[in-house]
């Protein structure tokens, strides 16, 4: 079979929200994620490793709403979720509501491969991460000013009963 990798960095992108430098940075990050995932496939590694490798690059890039650069909750925290699934075995792993795991997709893969469970949440998932030797990071690692300002705008809009100024601060879009 001819290996193939497809990625996304999130829908809801609006031209007016993207400056030329931001657009350039986003395209570069997507390209880096593709090359990283492709390297795994070209080395004969399984699709699962390519997925984890590509998503790790995107989690580490502050452009996207995952890992570093995640949006903020009402309380000013970053709550991260991730899941992955292996089509060959239908094994699956997922974590939700973690706040100190740098790469949630890698923890989801550990849940799949090193535990009898599919999904773990919150502090329990973080305790499992520590048991697996995954170092926890300070929550400030995830912070970017762009997302912090988005939260302030959303809070102001909410207080004023306004409709949301843009899709990313809209009630439903992450």
């Amino acid at each position, binding site marked *: 079979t001819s290996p193939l990798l497809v990625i996304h*960095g999130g829908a809801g992108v609006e031209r007016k929200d993207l400056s030329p430098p931001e657009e350039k940075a986003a395209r570069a990050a997507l390209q880096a994620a593709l090359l990283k995932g492709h390297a795994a496939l070209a080395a004969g590694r399984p699709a699962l490793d390519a997925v984890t490798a590509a998503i790790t690059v995107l989690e580490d890039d502050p452009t*996207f709403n*995952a890992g570093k650069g995640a949006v903020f909750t009402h309380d000013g925290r970053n709550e991260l979720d991730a899941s992955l699934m*292996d089509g060959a075995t239908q094994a699956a792993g997922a974590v939700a509501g973690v706040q100190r795991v740098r790469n949630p997709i890698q923890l989801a893969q550990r849940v799949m491969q090193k535990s009898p469970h599919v999904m773990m949440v919150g502090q329990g998932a973080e305790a499992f991460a520590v048991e697996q030797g995954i170092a926890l990071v300070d929550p400030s690692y995830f912070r970017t000013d762009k997302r912090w300002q988005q939260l302030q705008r959303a809070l102001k809009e909410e207080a004023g009963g306004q409709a949301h100024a843009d899709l990313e601060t809209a009630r439903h879009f*992450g």
Partner: protein
Amino acid sequence: TVGAVALDAQGHLAAGTSTGGMTNKRYGRVGDSPIIGAGTWADARCAVSGTGWGEYYIRTAAAHEICARMRYLGQTPEQAGKGVINEAIPQMGGDGGAIVLSADGKAATPFNTQGMYRGWIGADGVPHVAIFASE
């Protein structure tokens, strides 16, 4: 939200999704990304990663629904992705996108917003990237 679907040299598929959730969310709200069958699904024929208004991806079991249409109706990734992402979900009031990959190497990247960060790379190792619907 970010995601990936991959087909390896053995013909096996995998899917993954990761997210920071939504701005200003409360009460420990969880969207579709960590929910197998909603934001992420992979089986022997099909792999999907979704991004959008999570509540609607959960209620339609969107990732599994796309793969079920391919399995039971023999639809292509394009047809199944369009049916769920561009028809079923908007009809309920939601929006967003997804990436879909089949074991015979067909891919689709349906979305119903102005843009979606997306990319693909094949055996030739040449990366392709797009953002807006016009690309």
